[in-house]
C-alpha cells in the first residue's frame, strides 16, 4: 500500500520525468519551427515561380525538379539524421515506474518494464 515515503519518492521521480519530457518536447518544437521556415522559404522561392519567370528548361536533378530536391528531399534526409540523434542521445530512458499514490497497482503491472 502507498505510504509517505512512497509518495515522496513518487513525486521526485514524477518531477524528473516531467522536466525531461518538457525538454524533449521543446527540442522537437524548435526543430519543427526551423523546418517550417526552411521548407516554406525554399519551396516558396524555388517551387512557386510565377509563370512568366519560369525557365524554358527547368533545372532537374536526377530527373527531379531542383526545388523538390532542395526544398523537400534535402531537409528530409537531414531530419532522418536529427530524428536518429534525438532517439539515441536526446531522449532519455524514463524514470523507474511507480504507481500513483493512493491508487491500487494496475492489473497490467506484470507487463511493466
Amino acid at each position, binding site marked *: 500500500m502507498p505510504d509517505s515515503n512512497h509518495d515522496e519518492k513518487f513525486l521526485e521521480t514524477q518531477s524528473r520525468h516531467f522536466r525531461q519530457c518538457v525538454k524533449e518536447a521543446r527540442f522537437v518544437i524548435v526543430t519543427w519551427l526551423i523546418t517550417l521556415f526552411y521548407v516554406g522559404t525554399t519551396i516558396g522561392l524555388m517551387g512557386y515561380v510565377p509563370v512568366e519567370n519560369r525557365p524554358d528548361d527547368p533545372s532537374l536533378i536526377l530527373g527531379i*525538379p531542383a526545388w523538390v530536391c532542395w526544398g523537400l528531399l534535402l531537409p528530409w534526409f537531414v531530419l532522418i539524421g536529427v530524428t536518429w540523434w534525438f532517439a539515441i542521445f536526446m*531522449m532519455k530512458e524514463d524514470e523507474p515506474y511507480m504507481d500513483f499514490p493512493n491508487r491500487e497497482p*494496475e*492489473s497490467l503491472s506484470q507487463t511493466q518494464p
Partner: protein
Amino acid sequence: MTDPSDTAAWFEIGQRDKYILAPFFAYMIGVFVIAIWAHRYQKKSEFESEYYVGGRSFGAWVLAMSWVATLASGGSFLGYPSFVYSYGWSMAMWVSGSTITALVGLGIVGKRINRLARQTGALTLVDLLRERFKSRAIGVIYPIVIVFVTSVYLLAQFIAGARILASMLDTSYYMGLILFATSVVAYTTYGGFRAVAWTDTLQGIVMIVGIVMLVPLAVHAVGGLENATRNLMTREDPAAIKKGIDTAKHAYLYGPGPEEIENDNSESSEEEGRSPLSDPWLPFGVGISMFMLRSLGSVMMPTTVPRMLAFRDTKALRRALMLLAPYFLLMYGSSLITMNCAHMLDLGLAPVDSDQAVPELAKRVAPPILAGLLIAAPFAAVMSTVDSALLVISASVVRDLIQKSWFPSIRETTIKHLSYLVTVVVGLAVFFMALTKPPFLQPLVIYYVGGGASALFWPSLATLFWKRATAQGVIAGLVCGAITFVLMDLFRPLDFLIELHPFIYGFTASGLMVFSVSRMTPAQDSRELEPYFGR
C-alpha cells in the same frame, strides 16, 4: 475505367489470373492467422486491457509499424498517388510536413502519455483526461468528437478498400465493398487490439516493400525518371482545356500546379470551397497548411494514440523513432516517382477514377505474381487503418461513454459482448454509408486529420503538459476547434484574403480557447496536480 458492373452482374468476379490472386490471398490468410493467434491472449488476460491496449507489451517493431500503418491509410497509398498522377510534381509540397511527422508524432507526447496512462490505468485518451480533471463532461464530449471524426475516416477507408478489391478482383465496387467490410470487421472484432497491432506490423512491412518495389519497375517502364519529367513539361492540362484557358507553362513541374480537376459531384466542389473557375490546385497558403496538418495532425490522432498507450518502455519508443524516420521518405518519395512516371503509361483512368492509379500501375508494369503483392500494399494500408479506427470507436462508445460515463458498475462479460457488438455495428453502419460511393478519397482523409487535429491537439497537449489547464478550458478548446473547422470548411469566409486550409483556423481557435478559458477559470488544486507533474 469501365466499371465491370456495367457489363456483368455486380457480384461477379472476373479475375482469373492465379498469379495475381495467389499472393493476395496468401496475405489475407496471414492476416486471419494472426487474428486467431491474438485472440488466444484475450482468453488468458483481463479482457479490456487486452482488447484495447494489447496488455501494454509492444516492442519497437510493433509500435513503429502499427503506428505508421495506422497513420498511413488509403489516403497515403491511393489518395496521394492519385493526386500526384493528376497534378505532377506540384504535389511535392503536399507531403512536406511528413519530413518531420515521426519526430513530432512520437517525440512530443509518446513518453509522457505512456507513463501517465500506466499510472492512471487509462486504456483510452479520454480515460486520461477524465482522470486528470475529474470531469464527467470531458468524458462525454471528447469521445463524441472522436467518434464523429473517426467515422468520417472509416468511411474513406471503406471506399478505398472496396476500390482496390474491385480493381484486383475485376468486380464491381459493391462486391469489393462487401468482401472488404466482411473480412476487416471479422478479424478486428475477433482479435482485438493485439490482432490489429500485429496485423498492422505485417501490413506496415507489406506496404513499404510494395510501394518501393514499384519504383524501379515504373522508372524502367518509361525509360528513366528524367524522361518522364520532361514529358510532363509538355503535358496538357485537361481542366484548363475544359475551362477554355491555356495550360500554364510547366504547370506540372511547379507549384501551385495545374488547374484543379473538376469533380462532377457538386457536393465535393463545395467541400473544396472553389468556384467552377477555380485557381490552380495547390496555392502556397494551402501548401503551408498541409505542412502543419501533416506534421501536427499526427500527434493526437485518435487512431494512433492507442499505440502510445501500448508500448512497453522508452527503449521501444526510441527504437521505433529510428525505424520510422526513413519510412515516410520511402513511402511518399516512392509515390512521387512512380506516379510522375505513370502518366506516360496511359493507364486509361478517368480523372474521377485516379484513386485506382496504384493498382492499375502495378498491373501494368509488374509481372503478375509481383502485381498481386504490390496491390496488397495499399490494401494493407487501408485494412490497418480501418481496424484501428473500428477499435477507437468501439473504445469510445463502450469504455468512455457506456462504462465510464453512464454505467460504471457494468460487468466485464457485458463489456466484452458490447465491444464485439459495437465493432460489428459500426462496421455495418459505415458499410451502408460507403454504398453511396463517394467519388474522391483524399478530401475525406484530410477532413478527418484536419478536424481531429483542430479539436484534439491543444486540449490533449495542455492536459499532458500544462498545470494551469482546466476542464473548462479543455472543453472550450475541443468544441471551439471542431466548430471552427467545420464552419471554415463550409463557408471559407477568408479565402478572398489568403487561401489556407480550415485546419489552420480550427487549430488556432482551439489553442486560444484552451489558453484563455483556462486562465479565466479557477486553477486545479495543486495536490491534484502533483501526481501528474511532481513538485
